[in-house]
Every structure is written in C-alpha cells, then in structure tokens.
C-alpha cells in the first residue's frame, strides 16, 4: 500500500534529475506514514521514461502517456495528476519551474493544502510537518497542512538525489483525465533554450557567481574561471539589473536557489536576497576588495583583493594544481 505519490518530471522522453530529489522525500516520508510510494510519470514519451525509474523501490510506476500531453501546460497535466493522487496521503514533486507551476493547480483540484519548496520533513506523531524557508531564508517556518491530502514540492538542493536500490517496480498505464475549459484556452508555442554548454545552475557541483563590480567584463573574467572549474555561472541581482549579466543567471531569493559543493562569489557584496540563494552551499569562497562586505560573514574562505588581478591568478594556480 502506497501512501505517497511522486510526480516525476520528464523532458524529451527522459526523466529529469529533479525527480530523484522527490523520491528521496518519499523515502523519508514513508518512515512516518508507513507503506510505500508510487511514481507517476506523465507526458508524451512517459512510457519510455518510466523504465528509468523501475529500480528505485517504488511499489509501482503509473504512466500517463498521451498525445494531448506532448507539451507541458498545467491546465492539461493537473487533472490527470489529481486523479492519480486520489487515495494517497501526500502528492509530491520537486520545486523546479515545472513543479512550482503544476503542484498548486493539483492541490486546488484535490482540495489539498500546498507546502511549496520545502527543505525538511518533520515527523509529528504519525503525521508530517514540513520545514520551509521564509523571509529570504531568514526564518524557517514549520508548515502544518490541515487537509487530509498534502500537496508538497521539495527544494532540489535540500534533498540529495535518490540512488537506485534495485528491484523492478511494475509499470501500469492510466487514462488521461479530461481537462477543464481552461485547457482549450492555452496554447504552448515553444521554448527558447539558453545557449549554454555549461552545467545547469541548479545541478552544478561548482558555481562561479559575479557581482556588479565586474562591470562590462563579466563574461571576460568569469567564463575562463568557470571553464577551469567545470562550473555553472551565476550572478547577483545587482549585476543582472545593471545589464552585465542575463537575468536567468541570477542567484538569490528572486532568482535560482543553489547549494553546490563549491560556490565562488566574485565581486559580490552579499545582499540578503543573494545570500538566500546560496548560503546552503557546502563551501563558499568570496573574493572582494571591500573587507567589510557582508559576503565575508558567510564565506568559508575570504580573499580581500582586486578581482581583476586575483581571478586571472586563481585560474593559473588552479590549472597548475590540476596538472
């Protein structure tokens, strides 16, 4: 008997890594709720993607694969997810842009309370509560969902991706639930993907971020360092607002939230809203010429230096250290 439904995220017929964080949540939650978990794979190509998930210990894998689900829109996905979720205590996905768009709509259909972007699970007797960052990460709220069914999304960086445990979960197809009138009024036109050969910010082991101090030399200074470290590039809101970096690189409360093994902040002062997006990183390095910059209060290693001198030297020494 499953108590938790994990909603997988797929793209181009493959399971996205975000899904593995939601599975980790399920493994934690079942210790309190008892029972097992089920995975729902939804979208065109879900049938093929489902086979990637059979070794993660799910009781079964539900598949909703239909031409009408070719391009993701919440209006078409939510009805089927909500139908599949009937009978489960918790329906969970990862708080990617997909999960954040979809899950509240599912919650509304289920009459469920929604706790979004959670970073921890707390057992309260036989029930679950959820730890959520609020106020730009300056407080953690313990959310109690008052409805019988809980809708949850988990912050990817707070739940390490689940590893396969073996076994072979059976795959079962389910029918698509007819959507409401809203679905006929939305048309997916396409995605303009970032032209980016570097790792995704949310998944990178190393992130190199730049602030306003880089000025027009943002790319020129940071790109070689990112290449040397195999890192994703991020930016502070100030650098984005000033037009030195594209907005989709923004790390912070209002941008992407990251927690890599190594975060290198270059010329970033450390505004609260930026810290909210990176302070869970394992090791933080800050290079800034202002010794009083708040970034140094969260940095494990701080270097007070002119970044235009220090960064090229850092690249040289990193290359030497690797050689």
């Amino acid at each position, binding site marked *: 008997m499953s108590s938790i439904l994990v909603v997988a995220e797929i793209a181009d017929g493959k399971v996205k890594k975000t899904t593995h964080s939601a599975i980790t949540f399920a493994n934690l939650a079942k210790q309190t709720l008892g029972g097992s978990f089920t995975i729902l794979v939804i979208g065109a190509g879900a049938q093929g993607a489902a086979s990637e998930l059979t070794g993660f210990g799910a009781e079964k894998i539900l598949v909703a694969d239909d031409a009408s689900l070719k391009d993701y829109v*919440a209006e078409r996905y939510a009805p089927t997810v909500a139908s599949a979720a009937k009978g489960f205590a918790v329906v969970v996905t990862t708080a990617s*842009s997909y999960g*954040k*768009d979809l899950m*509240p*709509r599912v*919650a*509304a259909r289920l009459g*469920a*309370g*929604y706790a*979004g*972007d959670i970073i921890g699970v707390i057992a309260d007797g036989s029930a679950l509560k959820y*730890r959520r960052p*609020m*106020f*730009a*990460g*300056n*407080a953690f*709220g*313990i*959310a*109690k969902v*008052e409805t019988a069914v809980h809708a949850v999304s988990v912050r990817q960086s707070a739940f390490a991706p689940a590893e396969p445990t073996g076994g072979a979960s059976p795959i079962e197809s389910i029918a698509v639930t007819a959507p*409401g009138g*809203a679905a006929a*009024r*939305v*048309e997916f*036109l*396409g*995605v*303009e*993907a*970032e032209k980016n050969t570097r790792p995704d910010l949310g998944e990178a082991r190393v992130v190199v971020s730049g602030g306003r101090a880089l000025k027009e030399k943002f790319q020129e200074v940071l790109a070689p360092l990112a290449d040397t470290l195999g890192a994703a590039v991020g930016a502070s809101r100030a650098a*984005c607002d000033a037009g030195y970096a594209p*907005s*989709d690189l*923004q790390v912070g409360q*209002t*941008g992407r939230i990251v927690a890599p093994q*190594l975060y290198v902040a270059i010329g970033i002062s450390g505004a609260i*809203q930026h810290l*909210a997006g990176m302070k869970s990183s*394992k*090791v*933080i*390095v800050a290079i800034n010429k202002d010794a009083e910059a708040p970034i140094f209060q969260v*940095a*494990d*290693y*701080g270097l*007070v230096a002119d970044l235009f001198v*220090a960064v090229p030297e*850092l690249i040289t*020494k*990193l290359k030497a*250290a*690797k050689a």
Partner: protein
Amino acid sequence: MTQSGSVPTDAADLQISIEELVASVTSRRKEEFVVKILVSLKRVADPDNANKVKIPASGDKIDTTGLEWKPNPFDEYALEAALRLTENGQQPKVRVGEVVVVTFGPKETERELRSALATGADRAIRVDATDDQLDGDLVARALKSIVEQEKPDVVLMGKQAVDGDSNQSGQLLAEYLDWPQATFAATIEEEAGALVVGREVDGGVAKLRVKLPAVVTVDLRIVAGQSVYSTKTARTFKYNDGVRFAALPAIMAAKKKPLVEMKLAELAPDVKLKVTYGSFQAPPARKAGIKVKDVAELVDRLANEAKVL
C-alpha cells in the same frame, strides 16, 4: 434622387458575405478591445531588511516589531505590467484600459493602495484581514469572489510574496476559476483577446498564448524596458527599466480615487486555513570562515582542507 449612397437601393449592394461581416466585426473589436486588469498587492516586511526578522524564544511566531513595510516587489512589478498593458506607451500617454488593485490587510495597508493609485491604478479594494487569518488558498478563494464581481480580463499577480515565499495563490486562483495560467512571466505581448507570455523556466523561456480571461504571475524581468506591450504600444517603444514612480500631482489626485472595503467572510465563507504555521526556527548560522592572505593559500586550502577541487 435624394437618398445618400449608404442606403442600399440595389440588391447587389446587400451582397456582403458572412465572412466579410465577421471580419469587419472582429477588426472593430480589435480596435476597441479594452482590457480590464485586477492586480493583487501584498504588504510585506521590507525584504532589504529581512535580517531584522526575529523569532522569539517561544518560536511560535515571527516578531515583526521594528520592521518596515513595503509592497511586495513582485506585486509592484505586476502593477507596472498592468499599467503598461493599459496604455499606449508614447507621449502623450493614453490610457486604454482599467486597473483595479486589491489587497488583504488591516486599515493601514490603504497606504500601499494609495501609492498604487498614485502610480496609475484606477480603483482599489481592501479586504479587511490580518496576515494570520490568511493563507495562499484563502486569498485565492476570496480573489475568486472578487473576480466574479469585477469580471476582469486578466488577473496579474507577483509570482510570490517575499515574506511567506509560498508561490501558489495565482495558480490556485486559475484552477478555481478554470482559467488558463501563465506563471513567472518575463514578457507579455497583448493580442486582441489573448496574451502571449514568455515564462521563466529552468534553462530558458517558454512561450504560451493564453486566451482571456487568464491569470498571469510575473517574475523579475517583466519590468525590463521591452518586456510588456499592449495592442496600442508600438513594438519599437522602450520603457525605462523598473517600476514607475508617482508624480506629486498624481499623489494628490490618488486621494480622490475610489477605494472600497470588503469583508473577508463575505468573499470566502469558509475561512478555515489549509496550511498553518505553529512554529518557526532560526536558520543555522554558518560558522565563521577565515580570510586567506593570497590566491596561493586559497587554492591550497580548497585542494587540501576543503577538498572540493
């Protein structure tokens, strides 16, 4: 013959096809299309001072004493987007729609509503409530009642409020209304009866066309100079980046704009919350780090102490 040429005197003059008729009516609708937008606006603790958020030893609440209040930045962006969608851009500026702002809060949140009116909104609604009476779901259900009364073409909202960071009211409202949603909007282009919205998604921008009425929640880039275009605004027009500020005469004039109060229980008879917060915790403090003397020491420590290279 004194009849004017507009009066058909010959059967041939009546031969206008259904297609032509539909085309003519549609094009007239396009010209006359006037959008009405409802914008929700939440007052939050000043996010730039969020480090002043205190949690008392009891841990049962957030201590807000000493915090300054501001409109939620994402809601200010939603208001800016609404104003851009209801005007022609150029000088002299012509307004071609209506913007109604709504907030849920105590009497003093009328200050934030008045500033929204001063920047260009036409009317305001305050739903009398305090934050502890509300969650994202109740706000969505009450907004649904307001939408049914006001019948806007678009509900524009911030993608999240920066106090609770919950990111759900817009999506919930869209489902309760059975309307399409376009969340995390970076760009909005108005067509007659529809919006083409560029959504911020992981790894790029996804474009949706939503037929009105629809719910749109906005992200940061919506206030860039060339992000929002109404049907009246030339695509070459470039706004100043960011939100507009009210001029002094507008601030005076805003005092006379209509502001009505509504009761929460009348909008949403079931005021039971779906998510509650009985306790709060301070995030763990990071242990103090060290300053390294030079790049060589930094590389050495990263390689041999932190072992992250």
